[in-house]
């Protein structure tokens, strides 16, 4: 993605935002530009899919940032407890609720990144997969982490799937319930 294009888009967005600004009276310029560059980053990742080599190289630095986001050394020996503690410590540093208002935008971005990292590292299955991608564990060894054996891993995955199925069926059920309610209230 060329720099030229980026600045072009920034220009475009500022135009839209100023229109929006005069219309709405809100001051969202910065966040908008920021959002755009974020979405750029994601777009960039997509472009790279065709080019496997670049992707892997980039992934490695990008994904190591999950550990970095939690201020931890990329190491599969880090315990779940350590990850949780690190998450809380970083949350107290970066949560927009307790940061100075002038840092609000930045802290929001940092906290969203922190959450993304925690979602992966806090989940034993996702963490294993990603440790493997980082080359922290070799797939063949599959060292047990936190007493999670292979069978434990597959059980976890199975539980995940079960959870998802139950959630969907619950959704359907509640969906049915509320449509009945709607019907009732319309005809009252």
């Amino acid at each position, binding site marked *: 993605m060329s720099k030229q294009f980026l600045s072009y*888009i920034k220009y475009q967005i500022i135009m839209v935002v100023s229109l929006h600004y005069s219309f709405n009276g809100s001051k969202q310029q910065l966040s908008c530009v920021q959002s755009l560059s974020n979405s750029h980053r994601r*777009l960039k990742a*997509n472009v790279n899919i065709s080019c496997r080599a670049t992707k892997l190289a980039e992934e490695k630095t990008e994904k190591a940032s999950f550990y970095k986001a939690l201020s931890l050394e990329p190491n599969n020996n880090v315990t779940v407890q350590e990850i949780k503690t690190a998450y809380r410590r970083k*949350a*107290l540093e970066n*949560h*927009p609720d307790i940061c100075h208002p002038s840092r609000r935008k930045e802290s929001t971005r940092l906290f969203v990144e922190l959450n993304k990292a925690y979602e992966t590292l806090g989940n034993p299955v996702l963490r294993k997969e990603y440790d493997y991608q980082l080359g922290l564990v070799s797939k063949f060894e599959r060292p047990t982490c936190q007493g999670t054996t292979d069978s434990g891993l597959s059980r976890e995955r199975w539980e995940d799937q079960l959870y998802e199925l139950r959630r969907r069926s619950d*959704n359907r059920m509640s*969906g049915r319930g*509320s449509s009945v309610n709607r019907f009732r209230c319309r005809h009252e």
Partner: protein
Amino acid sequence: MAEQAYTVASDGETVEDDRGSSVYPEIAIGIDIGTFQSSVAVWNGSQVDILKNTKNQKMWRSYVTFKDEIPSSGVTNQISDEFEIFSGSAIFNMKRLIGRADTDPVVHSSKTTLPFLVQTLNIGTRPFLAALVNNVWKSTTPEEVLAVFLVDLRVIAELQLKRAVRNVVLTVPVSFSRFQLTRIERACAMAGLFVLRLMPEPTAVALLYGQHQQQTVHDNMGSGSENIAIIFNMGAGYCDVCVSATAGGVSQIKALSGSHIGGEDIVQNIMHHLLPNMDSLFLSHGNNEMKAMGLLRVAAQDAVIKLSSQDIVMIDVDLENGLRICKVLGRPEFEEVNRKVFEKCESLVEQCLFAARVDVEDISDVILVGGCSNIPKVKSLVLELCKKDEAYMGMDPLEAVVCGAALEGAVASGVSDPLGSLDLLTIQATPQSLGIEADGHTFVPIIPRNMTMPARKEMWFTTTRDNQTEALIVVYEGEGKKVDENRILGYFKIMGIPSAPKGIPEISVCMDLDASNVLRVFAGAVSPQTHQPVMPFLEVRMPTVDDGHGWCAETLVKMYGSALDLSILQKKMQQ
């Protein structure tokens, strides 16, 4: 919601003066607006103080009487007897009615059980509300009533704190829609208050619990193990459940669930039980009917309260005009009459535990708060579901929410405590799913319920017709599978999608929810070849429609059919 959308400038001067003279920044006060009663608390520098009104009460009845030209509220008004509240001149239950359309079942059930006028035309607009003043029904709105109440509340707070009060943290039910939140903010603005934070009630309790934990376990942050608490909050108007994981003063909200059931439903059920033909009897809202309704309501309320401490209650009430109710009501009968309410409580607890993915064995504490947590059946059902013998003892069930709000007020105002008792944080989760319409009338959540806030998530969509160049993004909130089961928040059109067979164009929809719960939707088409935006993206702050505008969705369908529809882009989903 921190944006200064509705601030009232009238008293800005005095605030500035006060700020100049005080060393500390203005500490936001915590307000718990209840359906039945409200309270105010503030951090006094070392602990939380609950403010008392002129009658030395901590809990102030939530109502406003429109007796003379000037309305007066339950904060300062000296009501000699309960019946005066039910004479038609008082409006209460604002929290139940605010931000609801006239098709809402909650509004419907209020029509014959509340002793003031609630008129519904059943077309999805706002209901008409009126108080009886000198034999004339005078119209008002829930937020106006709430604003009058808040003004009085503010006066008392300013008198006691000897300073101007402007910033507030307000607690709200989990099940409140975005429209209801907007209405609450509007009422605050009308009262000259600036809402620093609207926090779901059980999360305020989670914050207080976090402080308790920190005081008991001095081991700061480190290996201090995580405590899983389930918080069950049931008041007169709403029931909320929350599961939080707390360690080192940080409470992470794992899941939330809530519904508009509460003590009010229980009272209404008892009223119906005592007088089965009540609905037809009271529909006319004549003076006699109003009086009878008031008498019946007081009797029902009394019975419910007494049944919390005794097994049986004797009801003897003369409704006049030859109507007299004499009845002995036992606890089993009471529980049978309210079976549906208790079943709903159970399902809320189960739903919350399931969504939090917590085993009941891992729960450290069951925290029961709110007026209805005194009802033996409620207590036992929650404890049974959580397999615990006893509830958490360290909190006053009526004061926990407002104390939590006051703590949040101090934390959000940037106050720090040398003893570290304000090193607290609640990491909030989204109470409702947010998404858009796609694949027919399917609701596609982009930010799901119980996702950590602030949140940002992107999803990819595509066109449903060949050479479709425009697409409608219709944003909804709710848990229904179909969009018409959810609330429409707004809509906008993206244009300039490159002509291509259906399913080829790539449309990105990104939702951004900041820490103040402000929702922004960011959308645009991306060229599949170059992966670059074909047109500038659009950023829209939601909601763009007002409450009572649910018909917008139907009108959109009428106008455009499915010409501008979207569907999920499958190949992008799999990446």
